[in-house]
């Protein structure tokens, strides 16, 4: 199976490992991520204003490329996923945005939200299947107690993201189980790390990240996993760092026995 793939700015730079582990794991699982050409930064945050069109166009371009190839569009970074999925929803359901974005784009055929946007975890759950993933694990992470950190962007708004139950998600816990480890469910797993606030107001993010870490630790986690480079940065920088934070793809690559291949 071949998917169009949108890596995003950070996966080409500070979060290269998030991308490389994902690609190596995809090969091991028998699917291919075909990077779309000339993708542009998603902007990091979804432009909330209903009158904002230009800031949504980079997503529309990516979505349209996937449509032309007849492929689903896969993302990994939580922020890219959030932005592209929401813009796709606008293009499908908000007539004013659809019309005005297409006026800019001047495509041969207007883009109307045809592409399916999948997060890498959704590919694992819905396309590969966690039972199949479990069969492919050669190096089960037995004995590890892992707290899934969802954060905000994958889950909310639940109606549009349609990723999982926004208040009681299970996808990352099921993923952890498939790798042979034990998921630790803790109350702060879908609370905010502070996001972009850590640029100018570090102490606010410190307050939030410490609560998240304390919550996970209190429930017995010995590490956290995330899909988001900014969550990882904030949790590493703005909490006491007693719990290591990994990208979910790193543990995936480890369990599939392909981690070394990336390290080279």
């Amino acid at each position: 199976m071949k998917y169009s793939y949108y890596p995003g700015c950070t996966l080409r730079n500070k979060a290269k490992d998030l991308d490389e582990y994902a690609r190596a794991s995809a090969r091991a699982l028998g699917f291919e991520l075909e990077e779309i050409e000339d993708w542009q930064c998603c902007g990091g945050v979804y432009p909330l204003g209903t009158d904002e069109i230009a800031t949504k166009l980079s997503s529309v371009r990516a979505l349209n490329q996937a449509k032309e190839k007849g492929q689903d569009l896969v993302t990994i970074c939580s922020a890219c996923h959030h932005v592209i999925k929401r813009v796709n929803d606008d293009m499908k359901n908000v007539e004013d945005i659809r019309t005005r974005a297409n006026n800019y784009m001047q495509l041969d055929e207007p883009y109307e939200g045809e592409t399916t946007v999948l997060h890498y975890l959704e590919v694992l759950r819905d396309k590969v299947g966690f039972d199949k993933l479990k069969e492919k694990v050669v190096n089960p992470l037995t004995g590890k107690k892992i707290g899934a950190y969802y954060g905000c962007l994958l889950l909310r708004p639940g109606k549009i993201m349609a990723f999982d139950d926004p208040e009681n998600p299970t996808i990352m816990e099921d993923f952890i189980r498939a790798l042979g480890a034990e998921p630790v469910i803790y109350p702060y797993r879908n609370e905010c790390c502070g996001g972009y606030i850590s640029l100018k107001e570090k102490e606010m993010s410190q307050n939030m990240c410490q609560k998240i870490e304390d919550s996970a630790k209190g429930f017995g986690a010995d590490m956290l996993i995330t899909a988001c480079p900014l969550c990882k940065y904030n949790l590493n920088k703005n909490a006491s760092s007693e719990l290591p934070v990994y990208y979910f793809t790193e543990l995936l690559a480890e369990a599939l026995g392909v981690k070394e291949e990336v390290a080279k």
Partner: protein
Amino acid sequence: MRNEHSAAEKIKEISGTNPLKCMKCGKCSATCPSFNEMDIKPHQFVSYVVNEDIEALVNSKSLWKCLSCFACVERCPRDVKPGKLIDAARQLVVREKGGDYLKADEIPELLDPELPQQLLVSAFRRYRR
């Protein structure tokens, strides 16, 4: 001085939400991770827009404390979405000349070697035009 009425209408237009639907349950403020840092709280935002008290709103430090985490948006039982109202008020400010909350000159001092690109682009998009 802004025209308070037209500014309130503009906030409703940009946000696409109807503050009159609010039933004042306070769930947005109860769930907001930035509540302690805000001078005007999320549930109060709604009243400021309804009462067309926009000058106070756009000068509120709350505009720069909102994380766009969508906790209030998700948990609002009336679909009023205070986070979108806050963003619209922020837009009124950053769309005006001199309204940027983050200036490019500030960036070098804020950088550290691990800082992800995502943080800069997100902050730029929320804090300036």
